[in-house]
């Protein structure tokens, strides 16, 4: 399995290197979103006497600069890709291989992140020089962050892969996927740090996978966070990964059976 993942990751790196310019434009587009959030929240914080709920402009800067890395790390195969895969026959080819097709996607997106990481570093430096973040993580926070970004990746990857399988039952799945993404936008900490939201809202986010894909890895590095909460967060990520695998184990055989009865 390690050989399979290494080979796929290598393929992804080689492919992405071919599209250097496209990757740079992609990265520039990617940082536009957090920069907008950062400017808005910093302006509100400054207008509010320097902070909102204890978060200063420099804290927001740290949050959204780490956000850019977390976002790049948790990019996965979009569920929209399935329709095309079925239509162009790629999926039939994948089914003819003696390994589960999810491994190819997981491995290729993991490899792609290595390229993205290299491109992200100079952009992060520019953002840090411009917005001067307040960031002083402990060694433990750094270690937890490392695992948390991969945890976030696996939750998102497996959940969205499973979600994409809805395509096997109905081809017009855009509305379902949009509802999923809207929920993620609100409940993940992507638009606003969850610490700014009411207590009941924060409690609600525990019951969805989204918080563990955005807010948790970001806060694990930027803080403030108790050591205990770092481990609880990793535990929650593990729980969601296991849940996603369980979900996939239920949906996948049915999806393949459906494909096998309808054809492609």
């Amino acid at each position: 399995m390690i050989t399979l993942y290494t080979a796929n990751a290598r393929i992804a790196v080689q492919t992405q290197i071919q599209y250097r310019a496209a990757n740079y434009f992609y990265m520039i587009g990617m940082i536009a979103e957090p920069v907008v959030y950062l400017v808005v929240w910093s302006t509100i914080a400054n207008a509010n006497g320097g902070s909102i709920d204890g978060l200063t402009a420099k804290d927001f800067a740290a949050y959204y600069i780490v956000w850019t890395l977390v976002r790049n790390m948790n990019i996965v195969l979009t569920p929209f890709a399935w329709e095309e895969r079925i239509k162009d026959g790629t999926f039939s080819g994948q089914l003819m291989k003696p390994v589960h097709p999810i491994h190819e996607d997981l491995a290729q997106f993991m490899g792609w992140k290595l390229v993205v990481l290299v491109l992200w570093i100079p952009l992060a430096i520019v953002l840090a020089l411009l917005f001067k973040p307040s960031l002083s993580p402990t060694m433990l926070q750094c270690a937890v962050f490392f695992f948390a970004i991969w945890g976030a990746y696996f939750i998102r990857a497996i959940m969205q892969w499973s979600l994409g399988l809805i395509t096997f039952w109905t081809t017009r799945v855009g509305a379902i996927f949009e509802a999923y993404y809207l929920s993620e936008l609100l409940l993940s900490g992507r638009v606003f740090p969850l610490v700014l939201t009411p207590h009941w809202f924060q409690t609600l986010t525990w019951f969805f996978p989204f918080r563990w894909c955005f807010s948790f890895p970001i806060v694990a590095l930027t803080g403030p966070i108790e050591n205990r909460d770092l481990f609880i967060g990793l535990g929650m990520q593990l729980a969601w990964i296991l849940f996603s695998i369980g979900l996939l184990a239920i949906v996948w055989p049915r999806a393949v059976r459906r494909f096998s009865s309808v054809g492609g």
Partner: protein
Amino acid sequence: MPVIEVDELSKTFKVPVREQGLRASVRSLVRRETREVTAVDAVSFTIEPGEVVGFLGPNGAGKTTTLKMLSGLLHPTGGKCSVLGLEPKGRPAELLQQITLVMGNRNQLQWDLPALDSFELNRAIYRIPRADFVERRDELIELLDIGELVTKPIRNLSLGERMKMEIAGALLHQPKVLFLDEPTIGLDITMQRRIRSFVADYNERHGATVILTSHYMADVQALCKRVIVIHHGRVVFDGDLSALSDRFTTQRTITARLADGEEITIRSLREETASATSKLLADYDVVDLTIEDPPIDDVIEQVFADAHEAQ
């Protein structure tokens, strides 16, 4: 023991039907009508190890559906089949390790990278030991004459060149059974010939069993001793290619070259060929004479026409 056993295999699809117009569209929102289409209807045959069998039929006859059921991509709605003693339904890894499906119009290689990189990926997927991989890869490169192409990105290759890469990639794990679905579609004559000779060579070297579908009769004539003709999901002929002509054609073409250089071509009924030839030899100064069955394309056309009439 047969490599492929197919017994009363059937496949029925439910397809939505809707009449033209807005009213029908609205009605289909609440009540969706479907109709059953039988793509494969109680097909039976067996294929022995090392056989190269041509699977013939017009568009929509059920050829690809049958191949997909044999490779595990589709589940039969009736009957059963086995490949290498295993049931394809459920796609057991043990079976997928030993078969391959090449579809003429589908690309399975990494579009942006040279084929060599895709080959490496296949090595990892099929867990091919490094030494075996290098030997097989080099053999395929030599047989398909693709030494200069394997380092070019797939997207920069012509259709025929890409097809050769697809075939090489699909054979790296040295499958025992090859399902080739129109492998020469859209290729020029030279490329078709190369792929044909490669398949023949591969079959001879490795004793692989091959089922080939093609609309080019030249493919079938060059590779297949046996053909299975399928029409409207049913087998209408299963036997030697030569027997196909005997059974479905009533005429033969006699061509005589005369001493003065003129050429005469006549068509006679099969049972009258001998007397027609004698008359020709008696009446003319013949220096050369050939007696041929009609072109195989004509024969196949006749088969389909007969099958259509029978229904």
